[in-house]
């Protein structure tokens, strides 16, 4: 096989002829699949292989080293540990194994030899044999391989050259060849086209998706409009938008011209207290406002609230995309460290340098803005319209942050995915330009989405127990952004996505094989593989890793019954609703004002009709400002907890729809170490037998509780087949037990898949039942203490925190059989869940 790969290696020069290459490889698929333990993707071909290589494990992976075989294909650098289970050929293909690095995410290849390091480029030649190979990745991982003395020298050199030559050089076209390497084979295309979309989440692609969201939020006076169905009104808006019920499509059509790119005010979300969140682009000022237009514009803007609208201008206080790009590149330079240039920041300047990246300042300003909006919405009965010039960057950040803060649903994994679909994918964040996969548009590049993920992480780290999604999920999403494989990120708006998938109906309707060209006039290359959405996690992550994306959380009590669509719990309500209908205020730098030119049609006196002029004048008197400022002040009070008692009752902090308002002081804004410092390999002086386990304590405990609950269920099922001859007493226990299982939904949402997330350490129910009923032999009792410097404490039994000894002594210990522990993933290390 290796000789064959040599030829493929040369094929690199014939890159344009992708089709031919693919065809030539499909023939050898059957044999190449199981090559030296590497499970190749269909059509994937091994370019180089090196044996007896060790991979350095990060803290998250348990630290230390792992020996195995290193492969370089034209899609990835793969590492197969020794003794890893034989790949199952029938399983669905997983693009990247746990230890693999996609070539497209490699940014720099560095080799370390005796006393020196060298940056390897496609053209460099080495004058020494590398001892270490370090891959610096775009997602801020640093992967390090160590070549043993046993690794044949020729393999080491060839491997280095192979990787250096095949990793994606930053130029257009290479992305396409990378996509083809991953997804381009006939089998892969077939496989992708047969995949179903995850029905657990809202994709916001069809009108019914939006209606479902309206219903979920209890937004009754809004409707889904298909006026932009063919993208004729606005090229960047999605096909379906949500507008007030009372505005007809014909009236709506006239409004598009008044906004930049036709991005009229659209509904995003409704707070349970009856406030609506809208977003819009800036006004087109040089346009004549007809009387009818004005009526429509006012109706759209005020939505269902007749009284009060607050326009939140996002331009001034938030970083520009260029700011974000600069900050992020500084952060990368700081966190990655770079042994090839030895330009690392001196230890005593670390925090100052971190500060000067301004990254944390920017997360803070986003969170602050979102907190202000959340507080306004909490006040109830008003419309908050986020306004940004283009409405495609910071309004995505702020609108989705507000929802993460206020809506527990958005803190679940599926809810969050839906949120990203709604505000980012359908909201037409320019993922494609901002990520700049092709490295051909540096001016537009800005990791706005990564800044958003950091903000979510900040919230998560301050309120870990209020999130069902975990840090692992955020990390997975963060890393996926850097892989140019997903339809989610490879377009700037729905229109582009639809164009690409050549089906106006859905973004992700895979094409049935690449030869099936439906629209010959389409601009896209017909050989483009169908791209999966990022949410298809099974393509990227193994089941155990996916199970760490969520954690059990207490359920959200259902929304209380809505009274006329509004929840009348707001103490400040009367102060705000006595406002003059049609009052509009601008929130900027924490203060409210009503500048005359806020709504351009109102300021142009020639066109304003008497009615609006009148209300306009009264609104100018600013009599509502104190009421609004009180709403904002509620937030400031949260920062001074001693004042909380007076403003909110004992229910205050418990209301699930109370926003999670973050603390924003310097010490409270943390660096996402788990993400940005994964590569700090050289920070450590020693190899470590133990890892710092980073599961949050609450997470871990919650997992244990879930495990116990499941055990209860198991035991209850195992008692079910009790012979009917038993006495009445146990039977009563049985009925109670069933009741318990039902009551279990009290603890965690019933919709949660039973085994997701938590059951890493728990045996599969069936086998456990068998064990219990059979009565496992005493030999399966918990093992004794881990041996000296044992890799991780994985031999500890399941319930170990503190009280484990009690169980040790318990006669029922056979239940905690050792075999269930053997299933623990290694990465658990010394975790408590082991």
């Amino acid at each position: 096989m290796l000789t064959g790969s040599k030829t493929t290696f040369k094929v690199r020069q014939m890159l344009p002829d992708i089709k031919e290459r693919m065809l030539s490889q499909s023939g050898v698929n059957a044999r190449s699949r199981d090559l030296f333990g590497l499970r190749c993707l269909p059509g994937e071909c091994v370019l180089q292989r090196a044996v007896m290589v060790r991979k350095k494990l990060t803290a998250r992976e348990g630290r230390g080293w792992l020996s195995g075989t290193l492969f370089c294909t034209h899609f990835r650098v793969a590492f197969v540990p020794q003794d890893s289970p034989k790949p199952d050929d029938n399983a669905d293909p997983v693009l990247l194994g746990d230890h693999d690095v996609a070539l497209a995410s490699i940014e720099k290849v560095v080799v370390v030899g005796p006393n020196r390091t060298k940056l390897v480029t496609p053209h460099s030649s080495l004058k020494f044999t590398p001892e270490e190979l370090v891959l610096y990745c775009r997602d801020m991982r640093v992967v390090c391989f160590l070549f043993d003395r046993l690794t044949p020298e020729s393999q080491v050199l060839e491997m280095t050259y192979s990787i250096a030559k095949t990793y994606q050089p930053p130029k257009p076209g290479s992305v396409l060849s990378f996509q083809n390497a991953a997804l381009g084979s006939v089998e892969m295309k077939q496989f992708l086209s047969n995949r179903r979309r995850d029905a657990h989440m809202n994709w916001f692609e069809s009108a019914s998706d939006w209606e479902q969201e309206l219903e979920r939020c209890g937004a009754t006076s809004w409707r889904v409009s298909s006026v932009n169905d063919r993208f004729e009104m606005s090229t960047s808006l999605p096909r379906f938008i949500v507008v007030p019920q009372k505005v007809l499509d014909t009236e709506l059509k006239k409004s598009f011209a008044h906004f930049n790119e036709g991005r009229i005010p659209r509904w995003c979300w409704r707070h349970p207290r009856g406030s609506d969140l809208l977003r819009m682009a800036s006004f087109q000022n040089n346009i004549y406002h007809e009387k009818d237009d004005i009526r429509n514009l006012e109706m759209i803007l005020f939505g269902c609230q007749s009284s009060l609208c607050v326009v939140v201008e996002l331009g001034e206080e938030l970083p520009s995309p260029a700011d974000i790009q600069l900050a992020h590149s500084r952060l990368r330079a700081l966190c990655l460290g770079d042994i090839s240039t030895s330009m690392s920041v001196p230890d005593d300047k670390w925090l100052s340098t971190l500060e000067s990246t301004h990254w944390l300042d920017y997360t803070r300003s986003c969170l602050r803005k979102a907190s202000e909006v959340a507080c306004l919405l909490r006040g109830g009965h008003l419309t908050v319209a986020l306004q940004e010039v283009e409405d495609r960057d910071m309004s995505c950040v702020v609108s989705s942050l507000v929802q993460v803060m206020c809506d527990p649903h958005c803190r679940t994994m599926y809810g969050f995915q839906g949120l990203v679909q709604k505000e980012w994918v359908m909201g037409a964040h320019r993922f494609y330009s901002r990520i700049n996969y092709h490295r051909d548009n540096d001016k537009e590049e800005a990791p706005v989405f990564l800044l958003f993920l950091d903000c979510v992480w900040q919230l998560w780290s301050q309120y870990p127990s209020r999130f069902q999604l975990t840090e692992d999920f955020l990390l997975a999403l963060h890393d996926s952004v850097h892989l140019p494989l997903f339809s989610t990120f490879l377009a700037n708006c729905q229109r582009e996505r639809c164009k690409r998938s050549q089906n106006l109906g859905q973004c992700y309707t895979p094409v049935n094989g690449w030869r099936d060209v439906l629209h010959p006039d389409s601009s896209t290359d017909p050989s483009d593989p169908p791209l999966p959405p990022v949410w298809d996690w099974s393509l990227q992550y193994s089941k155990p890793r996916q199970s760490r994306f969520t954690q059990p959380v207490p359920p959200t009590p259902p929304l209380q019954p809505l009274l006329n669509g509004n929840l009348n719990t707001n103490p400040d309500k009367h102060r705000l609703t006595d406002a003059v209908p049609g009052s509009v205020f601008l929130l900027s730098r924490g203060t409210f004002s009503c500048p005359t030119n806020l709504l351009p049609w109102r300021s142009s006196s020639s066109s304003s009709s008497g009615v609006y002029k009148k209300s306009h004048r009264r609104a100018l008197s600013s009599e509502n400002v104190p009421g609004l400022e009180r709403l904002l002040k509620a937030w400031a009070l949260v920062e001074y907890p001693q004042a909380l008692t007076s403003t909110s009752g004992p229910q205050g902090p418990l209301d699930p729809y109370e926003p999670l308002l973050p603390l924003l002081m310097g010490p409270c804004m943390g660096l996402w170490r788990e993400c940005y410092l994964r590569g700090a390999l050289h920070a450590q002086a020693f190899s470590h037998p133990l890892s710092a386990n980073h599961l949050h304590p609450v997470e871990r405990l919650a997992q244990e509780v879930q495990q116990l609950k499941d055990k209860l269920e198991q035991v209850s099922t195992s008692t079910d087949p009790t012979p009917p001859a038993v006495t009445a007493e146990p039977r009563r226990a049985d009925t109670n037990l069933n009741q318990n299982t039902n009551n279990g939904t009290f603890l965690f949402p019933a919709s949660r898949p039973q085994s997701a997330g938590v059951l890493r350490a728990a045996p599969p129910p069936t086998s456990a039942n068998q064990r219990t009923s059979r009565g496992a032999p005493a030999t399966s009792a918990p093992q004794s203490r881990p041996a000296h410097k044992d890799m991780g404490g994985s031999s500890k039994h399941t319930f170990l925190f503190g009280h484990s000894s009690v169980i040790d002594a318990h006669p029922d210990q056979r239940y905690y059989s050792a075999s269930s522990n053997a299933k623990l993933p290694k990465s658990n290390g010394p975790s408590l869940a082991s």
Partner: protein
Amino acid sequence: PLSNFSSLFHSVFSPTGSHVEWCKQLIAATISSQISGSVQPDIGSRDIKDTGVNSRPSHTSVKMFQNQVPLLPGETIQTTVKDVMYICPFSGLVTGTLTITDYKLYFISVEKDSPFILDVNLGVISRIESISVPNQGENNKGLELVCKDMRSPRFAYKMEESQPDVVEVLTKHAFPLSHSLPLFAFLYKEQFPVDGWKVYDPAAEYRRQGLPNESWTISKINSTYELCDTYPSILVIPTNITDEDIKRVAVFRAKHRIPVLSWIHPESQATIVRCSQPLVGPSDRRCKEDERFLQIIMDANAQSHKLTIFDARQSSVAITNKGKDGGYESESFYSNVELNFLEIPNIHVMRESLRKMKDVVYPTIDEAHWHSFIDQTHWLEYIRLLLAGAAKVADKLESGKTSVVVHCSDGWDRTAQLTSLAMLMLDSYYRTLRGFQVLVEKEWISFGHKFAARVGHGDENHANSERSPLFVQFIDCVWQMTRQFPAAFEFNELFLITMLDHLYSCLFGTFLHNSEQERANQEVPAKTVSLWSYINSQPEDFTNPFYVDYENHVLYPMVSPRHLELWTSYYARWNPRMRPQVPVHQTLKDLLILRAELQRRVEELQREASSHSLSSSSDHSPTHTAGTPLHTAV
């Protein structure tokens, strides 16, 4: 009983159950501890907080006197001043009543719905300053209490002819030693069910380490503190060395602090030995007995033919010390010895560093420049040096199987920091609640870390250059390790903060005086209460629920500043805006209780199930223990 099970979920997770209760508690706690801190373990304020649901048998029989001032047994009110204004840096002016006892300053305001309480023990006060308070009406006298624990509360009050001046009373009781008064620890009359003075028994501790053995003996040579007045009475020294030789070595070592064993590796027999600097002097004096002593220490470990000396000081300072009759071991005189300098600055540098830190965290925290201000204190850099030094020591023993000798100048500051941190990394016993107490008693208290001088208990000379926060620094290092290995320590953060609070409070005798000899002369164990009595009477409060005994695991912390954090929950705890959003402690407690309950259920059902499957004909039905209603326990 099983119906309790559903109510369990109710009570823990529904907003109608105990949640409301603990939220009320939380709010009450935040109010009452607006200054005394949410995790402030001052016995007084703790009990106020705990009056909510859980009325655990109160060991501290706090008596409520007039003005609702809770008093400890033995505590007496010295003066009460009405209409005092507390100038709160966070929420403005608060008017209330100020009470000064011989232990604490207690300010209570009932202006608002919920009382505002400020409780500062007098031991924590470093200096008392008069400040000017313009425009506060009659309250024209100002008072600032500069505290050792990073806060400086300020008050405004008016002078009354009839009453003694507040400053005078405060000064007298805050600095009793300067006014020929006893420290409060000698007046404190609390009875605890556990005697903390029994925690550390040197013989038992050395026995645990496998000592004495053929190479090491437990010596009584210092039983009367004649050999070295700052060492403990019981020392572990090599077997084959005569008393005469030891006395000659003592003369050659600063303050007579000879090399003695602190810890021995259970497998390799490599040892941590501590001492003071050799008195080499400018003329490169030699001491044959000292050289032989180190040779014997090396030989006691068969695994290695080397001995590593870690000199904690900066090499330049060590060289300068030669001019002052001190110095370091010359590698040419001591055969097979490797000398390393750990380059840790002295106590004055550390004191200055923490002083700068106070400016950064109190009273206001600068949002934009927080990180660079922290950098400028260099505090984390020194933490890094200490942890890195200790890790080197630990690694030398563990991986190199080589014995190490650790010293600085006198061997009671940096030496104690390094040996105790290294032992914490190497020996899981010291990571237990009890073991850590032993570690502190042994490496710090018995080996003569000069707590009295470094803290300045009851002494008004706040500018004394002997003061330095070395123990705080050590506890910070321990905290850094608990952050990196959250499951490896049996104690929690509250335990560490409690220790630091009572380092200053003078409520317990544990940290008083400079040496074992002084403590024995003052009869401290007989006349005062040990901090461990208090801790061990309620260990559940100080226990980490996630503890796993990693026996024999060596913990090497990551020491890069990238992985160190500022301990804001200690240093910046007075700022109410720093309080954590989610009361993790409470959530943990809830979950722990829930887990215990579920575990009990599972076991019960298993027992039930197995009794059925084993003997289906058996007619003795399993006894159900009634499930405890949970809310009472939360």
